[in-house]
């Protein structure tokens, strides 16, 4: 049995704003095993980024409930100093916008060396050698020269490679990738995904992949959690997700992917839009947009229940017993 690397239990991260409390993450359970790639899928505003930032304890929101266990340690109980030792070392992160994620006024070398200096106590020349090795590993040509370049001289794809080099520099056990390819050209996307896949196999790193792109999920993930309104609405392995999705939201997401086979003139889209966090109501959060919604869906909030082996969904359609009890 593989070891659990990251386990989030009943996690709730709320934002306290001037307009009231916004439950961005509202009771999430996710487990990532060693060497596994887990995807979190959802539209903008579904809480997937906040979930990943909570794992790093970098969210501006407040964790009001639940636990985060990483490599046997209670992340939420660590001191700020201990947490610094985890960030960038055991758990590293890459972001959506490679154009802004690198500091414009420092060289690539300085930003990469910094990460290595903080966590690996190496000598000067070894640190530099490590940096060059990392740049070479992520496929950057002329790494020695690249160390002296500033970020604005690099293309988006190159910057994302540098970000990956920084993230992987200290051999993290978990790489959190928050929409790593969203801002990139399609051809570059494929290269970056391939690079991540390569590093995952060679370094044995687990990946938590945040994305709204089901194509990326199909490419990369072992298991997938679909998020809606701050909660997981369906969780299963990647094959099941595409062959027999249970939740209408997941089905909608899959239907709205363009395919080569169908010849429809308009691409399917889920009617309506994600409710702004904080404006949630009784009943299933997806019910206003759901074409299968029944009376119960608008009145009672469904629980995440097993619908198959390693497959769970939060939907009244698949919770027959509970529904009967209601009627």
């Amino acid at each position: 049995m593989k070891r659990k690397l990251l386990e989030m239990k009943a996690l709730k991260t709320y934002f306290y704003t001037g307009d009231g409390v916004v439950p961005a993450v509202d009771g999430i359970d996710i487990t990532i095993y060693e060497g596994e790639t887990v995807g979190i899928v959802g539209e903008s505003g579904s809480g997937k980024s906040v979930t990943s930032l909570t794992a790093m304890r970098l969210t501006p929101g407040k964790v009001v409930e639940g636990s985060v266990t990483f490599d046997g340690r209670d992340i939420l109980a660590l001191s700020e100093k201990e947490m610094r030792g985890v960030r960038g070392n055991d758990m590293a992160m890459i972001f959506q916008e490679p154009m802004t994620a690198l500091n414009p006024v420092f060289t690539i070398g300085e930003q990469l060396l910094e990460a290595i200096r903080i966590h690996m106590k190496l000598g000067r020349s070894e640190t530099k050698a490590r940096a060059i090795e990392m740049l070479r590993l992520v496929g950057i040509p002329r790494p020695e020269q690249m160390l002296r370049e500033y970020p604005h001289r690099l293309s988006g794809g190159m910057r994302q490679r540098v970000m990956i080099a920084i993230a992987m520099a200290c051999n993290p056990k978990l790489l959190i990738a928050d929409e790593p390819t969203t801002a990139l050209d399609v051809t570059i996307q494929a290269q970056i995904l391939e690079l991540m896949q390569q590093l995952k196999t060679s370094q044995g790193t687990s990946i938590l992949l945040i994305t709204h792109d089901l194509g990326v999920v199909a490419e990369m993930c072992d298991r997938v959690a679909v998020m809606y309104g701050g909660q997981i609405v369906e969780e299963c392995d990647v094959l099941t997700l595409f062959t027999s999705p249970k939740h209408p939201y997941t089905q909608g997401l899959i239907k709205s992917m363009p395919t080569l086979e169908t010849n429809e003139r308009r691409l399917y889209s889920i009617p309506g839009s994600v409710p702004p966090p904080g404006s949630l109501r009784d009943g299933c959060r997806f019910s206003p947009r759901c074409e299968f919604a029944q009376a119960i869906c608008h009145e009672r909030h469904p629980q995440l229940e097993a619908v198959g082996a390693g497959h769970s969904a939060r939907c009244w359609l698949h919770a027959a017993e509970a529904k009967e009890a209601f009627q």
Partner: protein
Amino acid sequence: MFNYVLKRLLQMIPTLIGVSLLSFIILQLVPGDPAELIAGLDASPEEVQIIRERLGTDRPLYEQYIDYNWQLLQGDFGTSLRSDNPVLQEILERFPSTVNLTILATLVTVVIGLFSGIIAATKPGSVRDHTAMAFSLFGISMPVFWLGIILILVFAYYIPILPSGGSSELKHFVLPALVLGISSAAVLSRLTRSSILEVINQDYIRTAKAKGVRQWLIIYKHALKNAFVPIITVIGMEIGNLLGGAVLTETVFSMNGLGRYIIQSIQFRDYSAVQGSILFVALLFVIVNLLVDLCYAAVDPRIRYDRKEA
């Protein structure tokens, strides 16, 4: 880079011509005749006319102006009507104390302003933020002459450890530098705070946090260097201003600086001294501006002056 500096130096010429023309015209518009002032109240019109001819103020204005510029090109700033000394010599006599004051005041500004701004920015809304900003409000609202008098009272009268006036030794500069430094530190503090707060929400700060960088390093290294461009601008302006002489402060502390010299020259209708000083100060200001622009490139690698489009 060399080409850029050369270009900027050449651009100074029209600027300085403009300054000389403006100062010349304005002085002509001001009522009062220097010849009458020199001759005294009981001089006969003939005597005044003789002095006018000696000064050359009887000739047409354009002739005077062209003559003046011709002299300038030869490095001659003219002769003071008041003392008969070369204007440039008089300016240079007073300039060292102005430079000293500028350096010390800027030091005070940067140390107090930068640090209180950073301290405030690290915890917005906290007690230390409010304390730093209250100090800043105090500094901005306090007129320099008032603060100067208070400091003289405290440090020269009640606790006599510093001189109340003069400009010959280093200790003479302590109080004036504090006065000038504190008032501009207040401005710099607010600016530093807002610049850092603006930078602190950027993605690359989150990246630095995700790498495990310490909080103070994030502020002093990652945030501050990005926030530096507006900060340098204000420090540069401050230096330029101070080099032009700090009239009020020099008066309160009876210092012999450029500011007081200009005011005295104006009061005496000492045209050549006023024109010379204005030109001198303008030249300094333009040079400081150029240096500030060059500093931008040193701080932010995205700013480059060696390309054609720059």
